[in-house]
């Protein structure tokens, strides 16, 4: 070719390349911009402030407190300036105040206003991700009060902030209900409503002036004593109800060669309690509407103020991290909000019921009345989980590590039955193709070949059913193993920064899992139900689905936690004819659960918690059978046994046929001891010990739980049985008996 022609050719190539590059960049920009036309999911939005018409509302005539409502038992006194409510128990004359603050407390303006107001809000200012607070004094709202028969409706209007909302208080026989309807919320452009506090200081006390405690829904229940802490504590208890929201909350980074900080327990019940034991008056708060996105706050005295207070804060918006580069992001305030009705129910308890035992009973009655819980079969069983298989790295691919085949499981069950362990609730885990970790996100539901066949499993289930044993299969419909391909637009949860949400595992093989969207989980669940139609495998143990609640971004929409909850409801309804066990389910799942697995026996080691109490067991006993976590890994086996006795929990073990050292290179490497031969005798012992107790208490409810001395606990059952547990290392005298250190004694009704 001639030089000239080469030159021309070269020039043409260069020009074409530049043009193509420019076009590509333009295309990317266009795509990126159009993709971000985000539409909110189905949440209601606040109304525009300019539409607010206050002409029909009446301002209050008087500035003095007056009786807003009254019934046979209680009186509600309203202070129109602060919107503070005083609840009076007519029979005893005891009062519960909701606004506080004295000169001695030396509060700054912000806290003075907050402590002195019945209702407060938090909001975002413009693009700033920091929250600001407005109460009945700061930001000077206009308050319009409409008196009603059983209470009042207050419309609070912040002119400058352009935010308005209604608060409706209704006195009931057992207490009070406070709600904020979603359609009463108005907003402007600049200031956006983030959260609302409804009577956060109801029942609050100052330093150690009142004796009593605050009840936290921490683990199974924990108490913070109302004593003068002398400034020892710096940070409050602040936790989202129903666990952190994976879409918004930042996760702890993971590391392999160091111990990990364990995540604290999740809040299972949206409740809180405040008891004034000397005055024999107590309060139980239950979040009702809008409870899927709220935060529990408890401040022992010394943290920010001299007051002990506990409340639930309802969230409409939260700041989140938005990615700006591969490795970093900045906090931002969202435009969209989660507007729905929110409400809290306060139950006032007096006399002998003004303690956590009374609160447990009140809560249970509430659950029964509202259909959140039903009486299930609470017969005693020992829970035995069998791990089928796992996977590990081998040269370039993954290989299966079989731990318990179907026939081995059968052998173990039969042998245990011969030893007298007749009431077993077995769950087969990791039975799917690929083993446990690889099964996440797999909707084929094939039985792993090395373990056996579907027919074998079905036959075994039928045989066991004939002997009164319900074989459960473990299935997690929420997690997804990253080694598979997914349609990330519709099947995988993205957080509000539009990144794929990850669940860290702190293991090398699969360092994290994804979450499946409810849409995909539902369709997987339907496939599962279809697969096992016509078989006897109608027992299922749910993994994360029952204890994970999240909002998420998918396919251009944002979905709230409430919508995720509805999807979970739909899934459970599909499993109507299955026996369902759930791992530590939240309260809204209880009506579907037949078995409650992994009831928390401990709180999370918070410094300010005075002691742990079995509040949740007191609620569930007699209604649903609940099982402790695996006994295999407990370092203090005797104390653990005593805990199970105190809480009335049934025992659990995880067992494998093969040695647990086989699991070292898998994602289940934290199962470091599970060999059947090692645990055979312990299984039999625990079964017998706890069965004895269960037989004596005979499925009745726990009526009272008391701490009668240092490390000595007494539990009373409805049928009169009393159990005394001595955790100390000294003998304890009770009813002319000397109870040995670290042991228990059951007193039956004569």
């Amino acid at each position: 070719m001639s030089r000239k022609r080469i030159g021309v050719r070269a020039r043409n190539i260069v020009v074409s390349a530049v043009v193509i590059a420019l076009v590509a960049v333009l295309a990317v920009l266009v795509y990126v911009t159009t993709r971000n036309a985000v539409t909110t999911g189905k949440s209601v939005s606040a109304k525009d402030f300019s539409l607010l018409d206050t002409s029909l509302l009446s301002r209050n005539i008087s500035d003095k407190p007056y009786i807003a409502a009254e019934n046979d038992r209680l009186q509600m006194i309203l202070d129109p300036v602060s919107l503070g409510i005083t609840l009076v128990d007519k029979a005893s004359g005891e009062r519960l105040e909701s606004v506080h603050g004295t000169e001695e407390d030396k509060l700054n303006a912000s806290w003075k206003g907050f402590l002195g107001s019945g209702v407060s809000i938090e909001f975002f200012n413009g693009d700033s991700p920091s929250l600001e607070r407005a109460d009945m004094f700061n930001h000077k709202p206009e308050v319009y009060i409409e008196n009603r028969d059983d209470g009042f409706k207050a419309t609070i209007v912040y002119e400058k902030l352009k935010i308005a909302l209604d608060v409706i208080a209704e006195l009931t026989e057992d207490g009070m209900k406070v709600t904020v309807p979603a359609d009463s919320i108005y907003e402007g452009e600049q200031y956006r409503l983030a959260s609302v506090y409804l009577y956060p200081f109801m029942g609050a006390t100052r330093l150690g002036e009142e004796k009593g405690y605050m009840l936290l829904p921490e683990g199974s229940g924990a108490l913070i004593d109302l004593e003068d802490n002398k400034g020892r504590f710096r940070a409050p208890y602040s936790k989202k109800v129903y666990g952190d929201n994976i879409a918004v909350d930042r996760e702890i980074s993971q590391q392999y060669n160091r111990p990990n900080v364990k995540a604290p327990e999740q809040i299972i019940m949206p409740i809180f309690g405040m008891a004034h034991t000397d005055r024999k008056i107590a309060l139980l708060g239950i979040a009702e509407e809008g409870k899927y996105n709220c935060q529990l706050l408890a401040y022992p005295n010394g943290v920010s103020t001299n007051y002990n207070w506990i409340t639930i804060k309802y969230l409409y918006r939260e700041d989140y991290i938005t990615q700006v580069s591969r490795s970093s992001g900045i906090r931002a305030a969202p435009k969209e909000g989660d507007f729905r009705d929110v409400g809290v129910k306060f139950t006032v308890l007096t006399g002998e019921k003004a303690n956590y035992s009374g609160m447990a009973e009140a809560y249970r009655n509430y659950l029964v009345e509202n259909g959140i819980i039903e009486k299930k079969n609470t017969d005693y069983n020992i829970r035995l989980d069998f791990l089928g298989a796992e996977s590990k790295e081998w040269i370039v691919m993954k290989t299966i590590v079989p731990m318990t085949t179907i026939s081995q499981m059968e052998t173990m069950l039969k042998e245990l039955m011969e030893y007298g362990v007749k009431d077993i609730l077995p769950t087969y885990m990791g039975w799917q193709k690929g083993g446990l970790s690889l099964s996440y996100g797999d909707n084929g539901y094939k039985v792993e070949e090395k373990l056996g066949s579907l027919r074998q499993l079905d036959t075994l289930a039928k045989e066991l059913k004939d002997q009164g044993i319900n074989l459960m299969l473990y299935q997690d419909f929420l997690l997804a193993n990253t080694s598979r391909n997914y349609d990330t637009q519709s099947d995988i949860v993205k957080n509000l920064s539009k990144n794929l949400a990850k669940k860290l595992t702190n293991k090398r093989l699969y360092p994290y899992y994804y979450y499946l969207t409810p849409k995909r989980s539902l369709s997987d669940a339907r496939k599962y139900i279809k697969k096992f139609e016509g078989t006897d495998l109608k027992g299922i143990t749910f993994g994360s689905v029952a204890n994970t609640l999240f909002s998420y971004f998918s396919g251009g929409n944002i979905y709230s936690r409430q919508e995720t909850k509805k999807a979970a409801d739909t899934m459970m309804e599909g499993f109507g004819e299955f026996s369902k066990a759930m791992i530590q389910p939240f309260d809204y799942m209880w009506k579907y659960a037949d078995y409650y697995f992994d009831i928390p026996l401990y709180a999370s080691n918070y410094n300010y918690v005075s002691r742990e109490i079995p509040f949740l067991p007191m609620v569930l006993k007699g209604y649903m059978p609940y099982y402790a976590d695996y006994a295999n890994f407990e370092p203090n086996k005797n104390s653990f046994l005593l805990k199970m006795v105190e809480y009335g929990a049934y025992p659990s073990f995880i067992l494998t046929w093969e040695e647990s050292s086989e699991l070292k290179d898998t994602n289940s490497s934290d199962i470091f001891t599970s060999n059947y031969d090692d645990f055979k005798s312990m299984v039999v012992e625990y079964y017998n010990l706890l069965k004895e107790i269960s037989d004596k208490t005979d499925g009745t409810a726990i009526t009272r739980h008391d701490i009668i001395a240092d490390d000595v606990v007494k539990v009373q059952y409805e049928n009169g049985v009393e159990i005394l547990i001595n955790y100390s290392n000294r003998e304890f005298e009770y009813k002319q008996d000397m109870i040995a250190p670290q042991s228990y004694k059951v007193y039956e009704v004569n």
Partner: protein
Amino acid sequence: MNKIRAKSRFITALLAFGIVLSCIGMAAHAASAPYTTLTEDYRGRLVSSQDGYLPLNTITKVGDYEFNKALDIFIDDDDILYIADTGNGRIIVSTLEGELISVIGEGILTAPSGIFVDREGNIYAADPRKEKVFVFSPDGELIREYTKPEGSLYGKNNRFVPQKLVVDAAGSLYVISEGNTNGIAQLSKQGEFLGYFGANYTPLFIHEIIRRLTFTKEQREQLKLNVPPSPKNLTIDDRGLVYTVTQGAGTKGLKKFNMAGINMLDDTLPDENITDVAIGQIENIFVVSTEGYIYEYSREGDLLFLFGGRDDGKNRSGLFVSAAAIDVDKSGHLYVLDTESNKIQIFEKTEYASIVHEALNLYQEGYYIESKDPWEEVLRQNSLFDYAYRGIGQAHYKLENYEQSLAAFRLGGDKAGYSSSFWEVRNIFLKNNMLKIFLFLVLIWLVVKTVRLLNSMFGLLVPVQKAIASFREVSVVRELRFVYYVPKNPADAYYGIKREGKVSILSSTILYIIFFVIYLADKYFSGFLFKKVAEGHYELATDIASVFGVIGLFIICNNLISSIRDGEGKLRDIYCSLAYSIMPYIFLKPVAIVLSHVLTYNEAFIINLINIVIYASIAVLIIVMIKEIQNYSLRETFKNIALTLFTMLIFVISAVVIVALVNQVVDFILSIAKEVNYRVS
């Protein structure tokens, strides 16, 4: 492989727990921990474990006294707790429950950062600001002060800024002085300087050596002094042995010194933030880092428990903002001081840890047989605690159950123990079977002789021999057989490869593949004693990359260099000759592999010898190869090899740089995309 576990009944176990508990006298609370606990397997990998220690209580105040930025605590033999309240310039003396006994040193001390209490109850406080060590009587009276020792031995330019100290039974002080890199200053009771003790070593890196060799005197003076890190903290046990912890010393961060000042411990886990050490009742060693990680080692330096962690801002007990000091009381409770949050966290031993200690104690004192049952109980509770297998192995060895001790040592990774057990097992095997083996060999010899005889008489094997002969003449086979000629006359062999077409690319490739297979066999299927890779651990991709990568790189670079420097060899020649040069490996390594399964450490020298022979002969062959193929003189050959190695290094470095650059570009593009995304939405 038989597992050696007794089936102990739960009741007996419970009784055992009970006995142990009553001996130690602790309240076993049913508490939990906000951290996970790890231990080591025999490969030194960290694996899960039950918790050994759980958080019990915190001490935030002693009576009405709070402490401020306290830097040290000390628990004496009477279980009295001393807190160096650094921020308030005093020492608080308290009971273990936090009840006030007395306050010492107010007005005298400014910022005490280290304390020690001797057998008589005298309190030694190191005050770096005052540059003195103050000694108080148990009543709080100041009885003595130590300042910088007189004389030039200590070092004129070394200041005396005491931070931490211990005192031995004779009353000599061991003082860590800030900034003094010579080690720990040892002072007599009278304050005379006795010498330095326990200095750390500076690791010398290649670039340092090169610098030293090549820089001028002026340049060297400009360099920063390469000094060893000074110890951060120290402690002394009942026998008078001194332990130090040093930050930035990697696996030598924890040291235990014998009387001669020599470190008795092997490598321990590296932790950049190591900050204090304490000794427990069975000479177990506790170490804490500022991040709040607590390590417990046996007295030999084997990791038992690793737990704890950083406070997550949620006020949970058992996590730390900035841990500064640790000590142990007589019942085995741990006390860890958190400087930033001004509290002392108390940990309690769990039942599991008590069993481990019981087993360990018996084992350390030599009661191997008695330690077997507790070790088996430990394994029952945590089957990943490989250390227990060593104890069980020793017990079986003493009981002469060599097969069982062999299996146990293997599981526990105790190669020395395995070697001894294997020796015994082999001995027994040989004694029992010597006759049979001998007869078997004689039989083989007879069979061979008979067949030969028959063959020469009746020609039975002739067709077979013919087939073998014709097989040997197949071109590839003939080329492969050329391998035998190489060691006989290397120079001529290479000439044959180069000019006479004695081999082909196919045969060379076959040889490379055989080499790789033998390499894999050696790496993964050697005997337990000589294997360097963990059992069941495979990294095939790395092996392929490294073996073929290195070979390929060598061939290419050598070809490049040789072409530049007028070598005669072609790429093909180098490729084929190298394949034939590695024949010593192909023939001798399999022997080593087989031997590795039947030899013990006593005979390890045989395998080492074989390896030396292999590598030396390969080196020689390669030198001859290059000389012949490229037609160089000997001198040019060495130059060629040096340049080849240098070129290989350059290749690797450029590859690393390019990968890093590409990564940066990708990162950059992604950042822009994300930024656009954020701005536009």
